[in-house]
């Protein structure tokens, strides 16, 4: 019973991290049809910025985190302008290569600035305490992750369903030529959703540092993880990413608890099963 609840809670919070980082990638891939292997780089940039702000600059966590996220968004939007706008028109293969190149540059930049050690993020002391849930204790940090993940999922849902931007975004994902011909400014939509996705990745990178330690090779080390979430959830499907992230998070955590020697093997087998049966992912459009 306690193992089961541990698996569920830990798996769920792991899933929330995966969701935050991957959801932007899903939108980029669904909307711009870009295979962006560099997406994990935004999580790294956010994590590295938070590391610098909290440890070196000595700024408090609750100010440092939004600052780090904003900084990442600014960098992402600049990169969208300079690099990605051309990438949209590349072939699949060129996209893969170009974004691998960008990944290398991000890794090299972080490596140059901070070296290749793990970049610790100083969290408030309260994060280290635990609260008693009755059946088990839960570290506050993990609770923060879960709450943040759920809030973001709810916020994205609200944005997509209720706001003008959300409607335009959905229209553009469905059919970008049609959206453009309806007078929707797709260039702006692209830039905004790219920036939003990068910002969420940065937040996920910071909050998830406990599970996925921030270091220079982060984007390469976890690239596959994020891509798997997107592929399993279905390109462009935010709900798909949400459920895929939770499912994969729980499967991976369960495997670590029950058969630790097999590592991530079940994670990949689950993915292969889904993609073999549903090549477009769980909630992907046919």
């Amino acid at each position, binding site marked *: 019973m306690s193992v089961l609840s541990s698996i569920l809670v830990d798996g769920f919070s792991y899933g929330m991290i995966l969701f935050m980082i991957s959801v932007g990638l899903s939108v980029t891939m669904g909307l711009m049809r870009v295979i962006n292997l560099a997406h994990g780089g935004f999580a790294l940039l956010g994590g590295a910025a938070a590391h610098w702000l909290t440890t070196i600059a000595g700024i408090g966590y609750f100010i440092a985190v939004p600052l780090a996220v904003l900084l990442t968004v600014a960098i992402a939007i600049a990169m969208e302008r300079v690099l990605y706008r051309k990438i949209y028109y590349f072939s699949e293969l060129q996209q893969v290569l170009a974004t691998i190149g960008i990944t290398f540059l991000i890794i090299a930049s972080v*490596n140059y600035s901070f070296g290749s050690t793990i970049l610790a993020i100083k969290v408030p002391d309260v994060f280290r305490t635990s609260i008693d849930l009755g059946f088990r204790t839960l570290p506050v940090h993990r609770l923060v992750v879960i709450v943040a993940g759920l809030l973001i999922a709810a916020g994205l849902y609200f944005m997509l369903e209720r706001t003008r931007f959300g409607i335009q975004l959905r229209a553009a994902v469905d059919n970008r030529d049609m959206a453009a011909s309806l007078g929707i400014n797709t260039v702006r939509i692209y830039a905004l959703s790219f920036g939003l996705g990068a910002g969420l990745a940065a937040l996920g990178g910071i909050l998830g540092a406990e599970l996925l330690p921030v270091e220079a090779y982060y984007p390469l080390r976890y690239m596959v993880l994020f891509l798997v979430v997107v592929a399993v959830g279905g390109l462009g499907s935010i709900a798909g990413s949400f459920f895929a992230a939770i499912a994969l998070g729980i499967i991976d955590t369960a495997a670590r608890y029950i058969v630790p020697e097999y590592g991530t*093997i079940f994670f990949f087998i689950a*993915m*292969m099963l889904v993609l073999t049966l549903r090549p477009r992912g769980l909630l992907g459009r046919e």
Partner: protein
Amino acid sequence: MTKSISTSRVGNNAAMGLALDVLLISAGIAAYFLFPDNLGFLTRVLIMIIMVLSLDLVLGYAGIATLGHAALFGTGAYAAGLFAVYISGDPLLGLGVGAAAGGVIAFFSGLILMRAHGLTLLMLSIAVAQVLQEIVNKERPVTGGSDGLQGIDMDPVLGIFAFDFFGRTGYWYALIVLFVVFFFLKIVVASPFGLAARGIQESAPRMRAIGTPVYWRLVGIYTLAGAVAGIAGALSAQVTELVSLDALGFTLSAEALIMLILGGLGRLYGAFFGTIIFMTVHHTAASIDPFNWLFVIGALVLLVVYFVPEGLLGLPEKLRKHLRWGG
């Protein structure tokens, strides 16, 4: 255009190909004498060329975009390594084992992969490599896990040429295997089977319409490429007498792809130029600044993709077209 003109052009191409082959072989021999202190690095280049040739068969000819080619290389490497440790240290037998293992794993993973396209295919191909890596990591008692497979001790090649500390035998061994593989692949890509592979890349629906069982043809090509990549992996295991988990890693798959695109797809020769340039830049940058060479590699990749997407060997063709349209 009359027929005689066109045949003479084909003749020119054949003559140029022959000249290029002679040049490559001479360069391979000359490098041994020019860089006697770098034979280890040069041997790694030769092995990587075989790996990239295999990828060219899959991607350049059949148009199958994968990011998991290390699965085939690594399987060959571990198979040959284990064969050497537990059964026999004979190099040529080991190469055969590596080729067979690469082919077998390519055949079975190909049964799944060749049904997929685009991103799904990329993901599945990555997953195959990761699962294999995880299995090897887990079977530590047999494979050495993350410490790598050690204790490989090779017998002399053909019972005559012993592997030496300076890597001289290793270099000649790899060079000869490379050119055997290369000329074999030249024959294959010029064969009806090779033409069919290009046909599938150009238009799979049309190939179906002319009666080709496209799926099985793709599985066949992938299996062949698996054997070739397996040979590369086996060579690497035998020459370095070590196999590490990196042999199945994503970085190897990505780098092979970069080298191929850098050189140019669907020509076989692209594998030579792309690999030599990439690995030389990599080697030089890493020895000048062991911490920041990734800047150079990242910039190189972006330069290629943005400015010479058809690869270095595509440049003359591009220039010719420009001139024709311009004039």
